[in-house]
């Protein structure tokens, strides 16, 4: 019988012991003594959140298909267990074998949001792995980072031995083969890192030197070893219909955030919204074959017994075979009592039809993400959603029986004026007015509109990577402007307004565009007991601010200044496909309020064509035949 790392007494004292015992349906079981490589995959957040991440499930499946490798999992212990592990000096362990993480060959940590950085340090600390990569010995696992935040790895570069930039399907096999080879020739940890520095997409921070100007901007960023490439090119899996996909995903016992089968229908996005990092770094857009997806849906549902399936992508409405796929799923799943959880769709006749088929109209709501309140500002951010289409979509939906609308906006976008902010209130009110156009006897009660705003955080590899971010005070003023304007609206009683926390946004902003000088700040913050910064009840802004002071780091430098276009940015050494020239061009067009057409309409020459794919590439290939 499976032996657990924690005693009954501990497991029965903490919340949700099932987070720490493994043994779920479809967990991969191997004898650790019979493999050559032990890889521990980590999502640095609580089990229910981490388990819901598709990327890890794909890599778990991919690694475990190798006979010489056993990939296991670890998530952040919740605060209750964190305390106990420290008190009793228990080493953090992997779920499958319950063996200490420290005994593994690799610890892979996915970085999905900046606010998980203190949790990364918690994982290292509880595992007994030195927090700074430079302090690690031959006994310690190789700590490798990946995920979207690895596109600017600099704030946490000192904690990682290496980063994998881009999609995991391409060069991980080489990373593991080199490990075996290095072991065979009795190479050291350092030898191994120098070896893998030659693999495209692998960044070994220790092999680069950064030099700063007196004003703290970067003077130079250069390799200090011949194997280290001056530019690291992101990895892209071009053929998504003939590659790894977890046909037998793990089924958690406790309810995970994503308690369903997830079908990733495409990667990348054709839209080119200028604030959106995902829309830039995941280019080019690549679809999975619809027949492949249908087959995958059936096998995943059969192997998991899940009651629900959802579609994953950045913009599902742009998937070319969406109606085919959705109608097939509704039909097939309906027979088996499985629900289709719809992604947010552009509201049109198709969307309303499928929504009415899979959701209870009285309970479900329409979702629009105009992101900005005026057409002028929507043009600046290149959000191709017009007021006309929002109002038309809402009117059609209201006529179809819906009466709930959710609206998502950002405050603090570049060039934003008071008028743009007030436009949010006016738009919300106009939508409500559309509802009352319907004859009274056909209305389904009152209309309910929820407007939510988040604060704009400029991200690397977007056309807004140079812009100044607002201060917390400015954000809160903007929020007040909007609240006041909402009160003036005719239908204000039907409009609810939610806003995000400004302080978390500020920190996210600092970490997103930070450099190596931030590692000391993150280290100190964690030492002050900060954990789970993305959970508002555990977020301590004051402790972060203390840590900045202790390290003599000024947050204004990172967020409250406009960067010069010729400044060396900390992430400039990463080649994400989209070129700097394209980003500058887009930035200029934004300032002029000029819209750039989406990739299906016209190629804007972003640079991602170097990966030999995407709608623009397919078209050109067609032309030349």
């Amino acid at each position, binding site marked *: *019988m*499976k032996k*657990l790392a924690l005693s*009954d*007494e501990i*497991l*029965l*004292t903490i919340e949700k*012991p*099932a987070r720490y*015992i*493994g*043994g*779920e*349906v479809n*967990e991969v079981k191997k004898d650790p003594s019979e493999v050559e490589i032990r890889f521990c995959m980590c999502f640095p957040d609580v089990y229910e959140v981490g388990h819901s991440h598709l990327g890890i499930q794909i890599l778990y499946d991919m690694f475990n298909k190798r006979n010489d490798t056993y990939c296991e999992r670890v998530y952040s212990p919740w605060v209750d267990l964190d305390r106990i592990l420290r008190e009793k000096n228990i080493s953090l362990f992997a779920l499958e074998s319950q063996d200490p993480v420290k005994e593994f060959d690799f610890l892979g940590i996915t970085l999905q949001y900046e606010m998980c950085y203190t949790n990364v340090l918690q994982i290292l600390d509880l595992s007994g792995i030195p927090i700074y990569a430079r302090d690690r010995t031959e006994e310690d696992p190789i700590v490798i980072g990946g995920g979207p935040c690895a596109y600017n790895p600099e704030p946490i570069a000192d904690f990682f031995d290496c980063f994998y930039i881009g999609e995991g399907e391409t060069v991980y096999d080489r990373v593991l083969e080199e490990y075996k080879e290095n072991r065979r020739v009795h190479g050291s940890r350092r030898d191994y890192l120098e070896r893998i520095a030659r693999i495209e997409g692998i960044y070994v921070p220790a092999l680069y030197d950064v030099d700063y100007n007196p004003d703290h901007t970067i003077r130079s960023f250069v390799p200090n070893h011949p194997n280290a490439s001056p530019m690291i090119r992101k990895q892209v899996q071009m053929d998504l219909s003939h590659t790894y996909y977890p046909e037998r995903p793990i*089924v958690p*016992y*406790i*309810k995970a955030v994503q308690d369903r089968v997830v079908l990733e229908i495409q990667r990348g996005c054709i839209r080119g919204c200028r604030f959106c990092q995902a829309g830039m770094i995941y280019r080019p857009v690549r679809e999975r074959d619809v027949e492949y997806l249908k087959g995958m849906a059936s096998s995943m*549902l*059969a*192997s*998991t*017994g*899940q*009651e629900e399936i959802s579609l994953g992508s950045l913009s599902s409405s742009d998937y070319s075979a969406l109606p085919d796929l959705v109608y097939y799923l509704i039909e097939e799943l309906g027979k*088996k*009592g499985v*629900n289709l959880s719809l992604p947010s769709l552009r509201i049109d006749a198709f969307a309303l039809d499928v929504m009415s088929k*899979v*959701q*209870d109209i009285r*309970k479900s709501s329409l979702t629009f993400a105009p992101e900005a309140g005026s057409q002028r500002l929507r043009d600046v951010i290149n959000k191709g959603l017009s007021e006309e289409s929002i109002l038309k979509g809402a009117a059609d939906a209201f006529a179809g029986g819906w009466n709930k609308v959710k609206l998502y906006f950002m405050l603090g976008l570049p060039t934003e004026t008071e008028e743009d902010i007030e436009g949010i209130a006016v738009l919300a009110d106009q939508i409500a007015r559309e509802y009352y156009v319907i004859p009274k006897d056909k209305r389904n009660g009152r209309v309910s509109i929820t407007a939510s705003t988040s604060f704009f955080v400029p991200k690397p590899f977007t056309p807004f990577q140079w812009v100044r971010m607002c201060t917390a005070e400015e954000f809160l003023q903007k929020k007040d402007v909007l609240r006041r304007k909402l009160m003036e609206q005719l239908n204000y009683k039907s409009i609810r307004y939610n806003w995000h926390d400004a302080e978390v946004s500020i920190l996210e902003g600092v970490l997103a565009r930070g450099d190596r000088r931030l590692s000391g700040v993150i280290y100190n913050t964690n030492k002050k007991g900060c954990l789970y910064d993305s959970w508002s009840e555990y977020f301590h802004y004051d402790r972060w601010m203390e840590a900045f002071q202790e390290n003599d780091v000024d947050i204004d430098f990172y967020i409250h200044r406009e960067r010069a276009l010729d400044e060396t940015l900390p992430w400039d050494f990463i080649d994400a496909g989209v070129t700097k020239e394209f980003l500058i061009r887009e930035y200029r067009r934004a300032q002029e309020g000029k819209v750039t057409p989406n990739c299906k309409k016209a190629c804007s020459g972003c640079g991602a064509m170097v990966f030999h794919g995407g709608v623009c590439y397919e078209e050109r290939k067609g032309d030349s035949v």
Partner: protein
Amino acid sequence: MTIRIRFRKYGIMKFIGHLDVMRFFQKAIRRAELNVVYSQGFSPHQVMSFAAPLGVGLTSDAEYLDVELSDIPSPEEVLARLNAVMPEGFCVNACQILPETPPNTRKENAMSIVSAADYIVSLKDGYQTGLAREEWRSQFCRFMESDRIEILKKSKKGTKQTDIRPMIYESGFSWQENPDSVRERYENGLTVFLRTAAGSTQNLKPELVIEAFCEFANLSWHPFAWQVHRLELYRHNASQAFEPLIP
């Protein structure tokens, strides 16, 4: 048609709570491709009834659940299909097709008919009672001779003084047990058998009996020292005798 299934829950699965066990079985039944009847509406769900929720930390040889199927392969087939999709820690070991409910009578389900349960309570290794085994046993026999056993029972409305003696139907140090029982066994060998009231009208957790005994014998009570294992669940049959839910 409704079937009743008996299953075991053991090993690390003792840390899975009742609601999660329900969700687990819904998925297991789908994986086993049994044709289950779904409720109507936008979120169809399976019509399922568990006999008696098992607390987190307890193991069991006899948990029961009723589920409605639209067509039923043989009971053997149901068992084979379910066991093929069970992880370690769950095992299905009996299946019975329930007779159709006669017209105009209330449909019974597993939950509503439970009346008693057998438990084995064992001292986990690494814990002490403060008494030698024989001494502990004789004290326990004296305890069971009491006319009344008063405890403070906590409920939603607050605490209240309750006499639990009438809810303890049997106790002792020998019992009938399936040789392949999944209960955990300990070096110290201190175990006690209890048959207590179970079900929706009266329910007594065996932990409370041990706690009351510790107070009676002036022994210190440690909430994590005891492993409780459920051996069987009973209903009253026509002659008011206890009969396992699947005879």
